[in-house]
């Protein structure tokens, strides 16, 4: 075991995967010599050479297309998109090609590509360095999607992704790279070594896709969240003095419907929290699914907490971010049965 922040955990996942399997390659903008603008790939080119850690042209569409071709030819590419906000030029290659290849060729061809990208706000990145576009991929069948909330899961999910024969998108909440974050920007930053999940095995392990985690067991209300919002939800529920069951979705596709819905059927109340804009966000799918499975147990309407349906404004980052106050309002509403 070692203390790792999320960057180190991701780096370790790639390092271990490259060491174990010569078919694993890493590519992306600035990921090679420089080690990535967030330093997630630091040292990999030095260790595994220029043939396996590639600095690419600034063409997200080209990067994913090349990764698909490499995947078809037996490699396991791990592609970094520098910010999730910049994945859209690759959208066609991801949704029309990467997600569809196995299906359209009846299983004869597939590309085991992992796409990593930092997402979410909280670092003063403004509208083009803060987005959380997970639902834009969740709707596209054929992609596995995860978003870790801590270093332990980040490493385990990334190794699982690399070893998976299906394409995987890993969203990395960049606000959590260096430490957990409870949504209060006025508090001093805390490093990961203050958190149990900053304890990370040095060796190989995986965190399976399709399994949510009950971060805190509770009886009064279920809070379903992922990424940064897991920490915000924990803090908000604690502040409200509620015995809340906090669930970290972790794996967006496949979704662990059983864990989520068993919990809500038990507590009878549900708050769903994510950072992405609310309208047609992934929270809608979570709310609809929970409603379908737990209708007869629900004591109050399910509440969604999310970013507003505007771009992520640079100066109003903390008014935009769904912080503890917004979660608290939803908790109050759901407890009061409004």
């Amino acid at each position, binding site marked *: 075991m070692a203390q790792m922040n999320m960057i180190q955990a991701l780096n370790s996942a790639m390092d271990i995967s490259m060491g174990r399997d010569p078919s694993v*390659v890493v590519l992306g903008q600035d990921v090679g010599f420089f080690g990535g603008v967030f330093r997630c790939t630091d040292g990999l080119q030095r260790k595994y050479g220029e*043939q*396996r850690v*590639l600095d*690419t*042209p600034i*063409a997200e*569409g*080209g990067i994913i*297309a*090349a*990764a*698909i*071709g*490499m*995947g*078809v*030819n*037996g*490699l396991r590419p791990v592609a970094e998109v520098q910010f999730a906000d910049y994945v859209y*030029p690759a959208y*066609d*290659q991801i949704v*029309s*090609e990467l997600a*569809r*290849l*196995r*299906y*359209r*060729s*009846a*299983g*004869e*061809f*597939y590309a085991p590509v992992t796409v990593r990208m930092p997402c979410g706000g909280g670092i003063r990145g403004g509208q083009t360095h803060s987005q959380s576009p997970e639902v834009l991929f969740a709707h596209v*069948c*054929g992609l*596995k999607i995860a978003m870790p909330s801590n270093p332990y899961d980040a490493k385990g999910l990334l190794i699982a992704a690399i070893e*998976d*024969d*299906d394409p995987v998108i890993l969203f990395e909440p960049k606000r959590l790279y260096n430490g957990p974050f409870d949504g209060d920007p006025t508090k001093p930053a805390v490093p990961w070594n203050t958190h149990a999940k900053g304890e990370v095995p040095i060796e190989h392990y995986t965190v399976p896709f*399709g399994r949510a985690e009950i971060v805190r067991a509770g009886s009064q209300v279920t809070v379903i969240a992922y990424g940064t919002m897991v920490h915000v939800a924990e803090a908000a529920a604690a502040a409200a003095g509620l015995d809340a069951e906090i669930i970290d979705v972790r794996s967006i*596709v*496949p*979704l662990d*419907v059983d864990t989520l819905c068993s919990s809500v059927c038990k507590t009878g109340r549900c708050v769903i929290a994510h950072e992405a804009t609310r309208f047609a966000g992934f929270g809608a799918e979570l709310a609809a699914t929970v409603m379908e499975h737990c209708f007869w147990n629900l004591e109050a309407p399910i509440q969604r907490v999310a970013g507003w349906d505007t771009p992520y404004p640079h100066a109003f980052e903390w008014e935009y971010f769904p912080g503890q106050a917004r979660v608290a309002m939803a908790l109050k509403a759901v407890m009061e049965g409004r």
Partner: protein
Amino acid sequence: MKPRLHVPAPPARPGQAPDFSYLQLSPAGELPRPEIGASWRDMGQLATGLVRVLDDSHHAVGAWHPHLDAHELQVGLRHMVLTRVFDDRMVRTQRQGKLSFYMKSTGEEAVAVAAGMALQPGDMLFPAYRQQGLQMVRGQPLVDLMCQLLSNSRDMCKGRQLPVMYHSAKARLFSISGNLATQFPQAVGWAMAAAIKGEDHIAATWTGEGSTAEADFHHALLFASVYGAPVILNVVNNQWAISTFQGTAGGEQNTFAARGPAYGLPGLRVDGNDYLAVYAATRWAADRARTGGGATLIELVTYRAAAHSTSDDPSRYRPRNDHELWPLGDPIERLKQHLIKLGAWSESKHEALVAELDAQVASAWKEALTYGTLNEGPRLDRDLMFDDVFKEMPEHLRRERDMLRRELGQ
């Protein structure tokens, strides 16, 4: 003068006389053939001239003459005739309502067949939808192709793809996509992987001239150049993209081959209806790639003699039968005449070949029909619809599969 939007137009529209005077031709044999290892800088004229081997009297001339033996040429001719016969019959069956859709490659058979012949079995091919000649060269059973077209109980795509979107992992024929040009940079990625692994298989890919407008074309040339990927990038300039002329795709000002040198790649503009020229150019590019020389862009100048697809009626946007006046003729006719000139073929042999292949296609069709048709069945098990979205079926798809079973009263 004031700026005014320029609007490219084809030389002739329905009711007007076909006019191919825009086409820049070079006499057969005129262009030099650079050494395999030469720099792209020293071959600019190949991107704007036209590599041709067969002259107007059907002799093979010049530096690009590949000197293939007559038997090999006969094999190529056979594949081209088979492609055409196959295409013709499939369109007829589509008109009879047996197929939902079909796309012919009539007039551009050499583009696929000659290239396929020049490549090695281990080379990976990433075709667009109009290179069925590659399926013939790689020996795909006609019945298999037809079952795909029929979406029947033996459909290789398990009923999932439109007709003509074939694939074969074994034959190294990549799955064809309905989305234009996406395979272009994927082929580059495949070739990059080959280079990373130190294998000497190369990749080859094809796209229409209309499709070069897509981002993928740019990404492919760029990545191929930056990483020196062993790949052949083929642009099939058949002059039309559904109803729009190649000028709308950017072919009015310069050739498509000229994009190669701009990215630091050789660009070859080749007579796409000249089997020998296509063969020689492909072979040159393949040898170059295989020996570490990187990628080549090849523009194949040809003509889409038939409709875009069975959903299309070209008489709405171009003169009827203008393909008969196409200056580069017909690839089958030209190779046939060349073989006759060589004394290795005859009209009667040709007729016999057509008849033989026609019969072969007919009998394959008969067999294919026994495996069902889209409309009358049998089709595959509908449960298969839920397979292969992922390697293993996740819970939610299992649930949906069960819902469908209930919906169908099972």
